[in-house]
């Protein structure tokens, strides 16, 4: 086609003469490689973005609020089954039982952190009540805590498959107890 057009403008007679000697027609071949490259690039992009952008969710169940007009009392629990965790920023203060609590400190490290404390308590509960699932964890968040600490502690519950846990508001006494404990650690 291109040759004919060129011939039209310059010397039409010559063009016609040349046309006599016919070359065998070649099928035009388009090099598809760049297109394929681009295609696969896009394909990879979309494959990766679709699988990466699915956020996960962690279900949380909180106990209903018990007000004075409700005729239910807060459930009573045996002292020996309980462990209370007071969660601060990156730190967990814990005590067992209910009467005359003695605070200890731990953190979220995978070895020797709060997980080990909980597993130990489970064994104690199992020795006493025959079933480690009897253990009850009470989680109280200190005001200094961040959202990360909250997710971390709930995550620990999921990791050790602790079903019985409750998120409870912290009392003033407990917050003071933690402050006191921190001072003690600093001075010693």
């Amino acid at each position, binding site marked *: 086609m291109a040759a004919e057009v060129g011939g039209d403008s310059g010397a039409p007679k010559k063009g016609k003469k040349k046309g006599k000697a016919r070359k065998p027609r070649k099928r035009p071949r388009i090099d598809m490689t760049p297109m394929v490259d681009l295609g696969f690039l896009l*394909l990879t992009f979309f494959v990766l973005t679709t699988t990466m952008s699915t956020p996960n*969710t962690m279900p949380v169940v909180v106990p209903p609020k018990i007000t004075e007009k409700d005729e239910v009392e807060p459930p009573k629990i045996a002292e020996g089954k309980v462990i209370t965790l007071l969660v601060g920023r990156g730190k967990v203060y814990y005590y067992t039982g209910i009467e005359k609590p003695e605070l200890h400190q731990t953190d979220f490290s995978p070895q020797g952190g709060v997980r080990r404390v909980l597993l130990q308590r489970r064994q104690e509960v199992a020795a006493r009540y025959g079933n480690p699932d009897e253990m009850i964890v009470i989680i109280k968040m200190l005001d200094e805590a961040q959202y990360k600490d909250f997710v971390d502690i709930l995550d620990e519950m999921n990791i050790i498959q602790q079903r019985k846990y409750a998120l409870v508001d912290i009392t003033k006494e407990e917050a003071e107890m933690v402050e006191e404990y921190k001072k003690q650690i600093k001075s010693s």
Partner: protein
Amino acid sequence: MSKFKAKKQNIAIDMTPMVDLAFLLITFFMLTVKFRAPEAVEVDLPSSIADTPLPAQDILMISVSGDGRIFFGVDSKHVRLSILEKIKERYGYSFSEEEMHIFSILPEIGVPFEQLKGYLVLREDERKAIDKRTSIPVDSANNQLKQWILFARYSNPKLRIVIRADERAPYPVIARIIETLKEQKVHRFNLITTFEARPQKVS
């Protein structure tokens, strides 16, 4: 050397079927991909071992920024518009057609009701600047988050509530949100986290 040596031929593989397939897949992924809507707050999610994917629809999302500011969002345009209707009824504001349209396409809102009208008439970049300092009030005296949730659940009772908070968000803000949810008898909700591998030894 021989006269009858076969002519060397360029090997050409017909790539057409492969290309067809590649473009078919591209089309598929392009159509199915759902880009995350640009969110009003940047959030660094904490990680957990939770692996339940977020449901695709009927989401009521409460976002909390790293400095503890609260944003509210629902995923459906329809619900957003009926929330705006409720706000009009309840607080006696009026919104123009244009303002309603802007409200319906905003994924998240983080301004008090009083500032909402002023917020909607702004340009996009001005809105972004405002998003950096406002929050939905949650004080017990003026708990507007409660109103937002109420309006949203009234429009779509099936809404599932998720909290999407920055890992540095102060806990007292989260506690206020949980308290607000409890007041409305919502005791089951979800926290959005990124996935982290489950630790190997749990004994």
